[in-house]
C-alpha cells in the first residue's frame, strides 16, 4: 500500500476551527422552532446537527473531525434513562407518601438517600455522555474512545464536591484537575492512549494564584458593592419588603454592574488558567497539546456570548457555544508529531445509545 507521510514518518498538526456564526444561528433557529411544535423532542436531532457541523468544521492536521452520532440514539438513550431511573425515583417518592406516615423517620430519609444517589449520578452521567461523544468522534477514520468506570467517576466527583464545599471552594481547582486526569487517562484515539502528565509547563500555570484572586476579589467586590448600596441609599433607604421603589431597585442593580464586571475579570483569568493547565497536560503519541487562551478571550466571549443569547432570544445559544469552542480550538497548538501509521482502529466497544442520563438530569451540553 502506498501511504502519504510514509511508514514511520510522523506528521505535525494544526488544530483549527472554521465554523461561521450564520450556520450555527440557523441550526439554533430551526431547532428552537421545531422544539416548539414537538414539545422539545426535536432537541435530540438539533443537537446532533449542531455537533455534526461543529465537528466537521474542526480539523486536525487538515483532516476534519467526523461526528457519527444520530438523533435517534440520543432519543432512545433518554427514554432508557427516564424509564430505568427517573420514573423509579419518582415512583419511590410517591410510594413513600402512600406507605409511610408523617412521623416515620424513613419518610425524611428516603428523599435524602435518593438525592445522595442523584448527586453521584451527576458524575456518572457526565462520564457516560463523554464516552458517547468520544465513541461518535472520528479522525482519519479512527474512533476515539473512553474507558474506565462511570460509577467510580461519579463517586470521585461527589467526594470532591463535598471536599470543595467544606473548603469553601478551595479544593475546587484541584478537584477539576483530578477529574480531568481521571477522564483523560482512560481516553483513546484508536489504539493510542491519551496521557495526562503534570509537565513543568502545565504545573507552571498559576492555578491557585488565579483562584485566590478570583475568590478574594469576589469577596471584596461583594463587600464593596454592599458598601456602595449603603452609602448611596442609607439604612432608611433600603427596601423593607413591604413596598419596593423601582428607583431603589434600579440603583441596587445598577451599582452591581461594575462589580460583576470586576468579578468576571477575576473569574475569566482563573478559567483561562484552568483550560491551559489541563490542555498542557495532554499528550497523545508524540504530540503534546498546548493552549494560548487568555483572560481576555474568556472575558470577551462571556460578554459577547451573553449579548448574543439575549438579543437572539435564546436561539443564539448554539452559536455562542460554537464561538467558545472555536476560540478554545484556535488557541490550541500541537508540539511534536503523531505517527499515524502506528495508530490502529479502536477495539473499545462503543455504546449503542448515548447521554440519556445526562439529558434526564439536565446536564446536557451541546458539545
Amino acid at each position, binding site marked *: 500500500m502506498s501511504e*502519504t507521510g510514509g511508514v514511520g514518518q510522523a506528521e505535525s498538526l494544526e488544530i483549527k476551527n472554521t465554523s461561521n456564526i450564520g450556520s450555527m444561528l440557523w441550526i439554533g433557529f430551526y431547532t428552537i422552532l421545531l422544539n416548539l411544535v414537538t*414539545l*422539545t423532542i426535536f432537541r435530540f436531532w438539533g443537537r446532533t446537527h449542531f455537533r455534526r457541523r461543529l465537528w466537521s468544521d474542526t480539523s486536525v492536521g487538515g483532516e476534519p473531525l467526523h461526528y457519527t452520532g444520530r438523533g435517534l440514539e440520543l432519543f432512545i438513550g433518554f427514554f432508557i434513562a427516564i424509564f430505568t431511573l427517573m420514573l423509579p425515583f*419518582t415512583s419511590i417518592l*410517591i410510594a413513600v407518601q402512600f406507605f409511610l*406516615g408523617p412521623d416515620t423517620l424513613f419518610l425524611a430519609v428516603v428523599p435524602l438517600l435518593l438525592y445522595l444517589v442523584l448527586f453521584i449520578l451527576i458524575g456518572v452521567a457526565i462520564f457516560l455522555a463523554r464516552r458517547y461523544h468520544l465513541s461518535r468522534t472520528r479522525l482519519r477514520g*479512527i474512533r476515539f474512545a473512553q474507558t474506565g468506570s462511570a460509577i467510580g467517576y461519579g463517586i470521585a466527583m461527589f467526594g470532591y464536591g463535598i471536599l470543595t464545599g467544606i473548603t469553601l471552594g478551595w479544593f475546587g481547582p484541584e478537584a477539576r484537575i483530578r477529574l480531568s486526569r481521571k477522564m483523560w487517562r482512560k481516553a483513546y484515539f484508536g489504539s493510542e492512549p491519551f496521557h495526562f502528565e503534570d509537565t513543568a509547563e502545565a504545573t507552571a500555570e498559576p492555578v491557585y494564584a488565579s483562584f485566590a484572586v478570583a475568590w478574594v476579589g469576589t469577596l471584596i467586590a461583594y463587600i464593596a458593592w454592599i458598601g456602595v448600596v449603603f452609602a448611596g441609599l442609607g439604612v432608611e433607604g433600603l427596601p423593607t419588603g413591604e413596598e419596593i421603589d423601582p428607583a431603589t431597585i434600579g440603583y441596587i442593580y445598577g451599582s452591581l454592574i461594575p462589580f460583576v464586571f470586576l468579578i468576571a475579570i477575576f473569574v475569566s483569568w482563573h478559567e483561562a488558567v484552568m483550560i491551559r493547565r489541563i490542555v498542557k497536560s495532554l499528550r497523545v503519541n508524540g504530540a503534546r497539546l498546548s493552549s494560548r487562551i487568555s483572560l481576555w478571550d474568556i472575558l470577551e466571549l462571556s460578554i459577547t456570548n451573553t449579548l448574543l443569547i439575549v438579543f437572539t432570544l435564546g436561539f443564539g445559544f448554539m452559536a455562542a457555544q460554537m464561538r467558545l469552542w472555536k476560540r478554545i480550538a484556535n488557541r490550541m497548538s500541537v508540539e511534536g508529531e503523531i505517527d499515524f501509521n502506528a*495508530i490502529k*482502529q479502536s477495539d473499545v466497544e462503543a455504546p449503542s445509545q448515548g447521554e440519556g442520563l445526562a*439529558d434526564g438530569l439536565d446536564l446536557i451540553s451541546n458539545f
Partner: protein
Amino acid sequence: MTPNSFPARFYDGETATAHEAAVFLEAAQLIIEVGERREVWAYKFLTRIPGAGDGLRLTHRRDKDAILVLGAEAETALHSVAPGIFDGSRERNRMGVLVVGLIIVTGLISAALFIGVPAASEPLARATPKDFELRMGKNLAAQITTIFRPCRGSAQAVTTLQPIIDELADTGDAGFPVTFRFVHMSAPNAFALPGGQVVATSGLVNLLGEDPDAFVAVIAHELGHVKARDGMQAFYRNAGLGVILEIITGGSGVAQQLVLVGGQLRQLRYNRRQEMRADETAAGTLLKANMNPEALARAFEALQSYGGNDEESDRKVPAWLSSHPDTDDRIERARARAKAGGVSPISDEDWAVIVEACKKERKG
C-alpha cells in the same frame, strides 16, 4: 490513469494512515484501488461528510469507518456520472419524515396529557385504598404546615369546631375522618387535601367574621371534595402531568416530583365539574343538617367581593373560586336550594374562639 480514474486519499478505518489511492468512476459505483487492495462502493450507499478539509469526503453506509477524499476534478466527474448524487434531496426527505413523525408523536403525547391523564385520575382515585389516601393526606398536611404556620389558637379552635365538622361529615357521608387545621395566610382560602385533611386560612375566618354560617357552608363544600376524593384525583392529575412533561422535556424528575408533592398540592385546583359537585354535596349536607344553603351563596359573594373585578385582585381569589369564573351561576344555584329558617350550627361564643384563634399575632 484512465479518463475515469482519479487520484484520491483513502483512510481504510483500520489504521490512521492516509493511503494514496486511485478511484475509478463507473455508472453505478466507484472503485477504490490502494495497491493490491480494491474496494467497490455503490453510489447509493455513499454519504458525503461535510468538512473543513480539502476535497469531497465520502463514507460508505456499510463501512462507516473508511473515508475517501476526492479532489476537485474527481468531484466534478462524479457529479457528471451520478447526477444529483449529493443534491441534498435525501437529507431533506429524511428531515421531512422526521418532523412529521415527531409532530404526530407530539399530538399523541398532547392527547395523553390533556385527555388521558385527567380521564384516568378519577378511576385511579376511586381504586386507591383508603388507608393509602389517609397516609398521603397526613403527609401532605404535615408538609403544608411546614410552609404555612398554623394559627396560634388552631388546636382550641378545631376542638370547638370539631363536633360541627363531625356532624357535617357524618351527614354528608364524607367517607374519611376529617382533620381540620387553621393556618396563617392573609388570602381567604380553604382546601381539601386527600384523606379528609381540610385546611382553612386565617384570611377566610377574617373575611367571614360576621357570618359564621357562611364559614360552615365553606367547610361543607370542602367535605364535598373529601367525599368525591377530589384531592386524590388532583394528585394523580398533577403527578401524571409532571411525569409526562418530565419524559418530554427532561430535567431532574426527582426534584420536579418533590416540588409537586411538597408544594404544588397546596394550590389544588379542581375542575368546574368537581366544584359544582362539591357545591351540590354541600347544599344537600346543609339541608340534611337543618342548615340553610343560602349561607353558601353568601360565602361565594363575600369571596367574590374580596376578589373584585380587576386583574390585580383576581390573583387573590382562592383556588376553589378562581378556576371558576362563573361564580354568579354558583351563587344562583346555591340560592335556589335555600329554604326558610334553618339553624345556625355555631354559637356566638364558639365563633368568637375561632375568630380570636386566627387573629394576626403581633410581632414582639
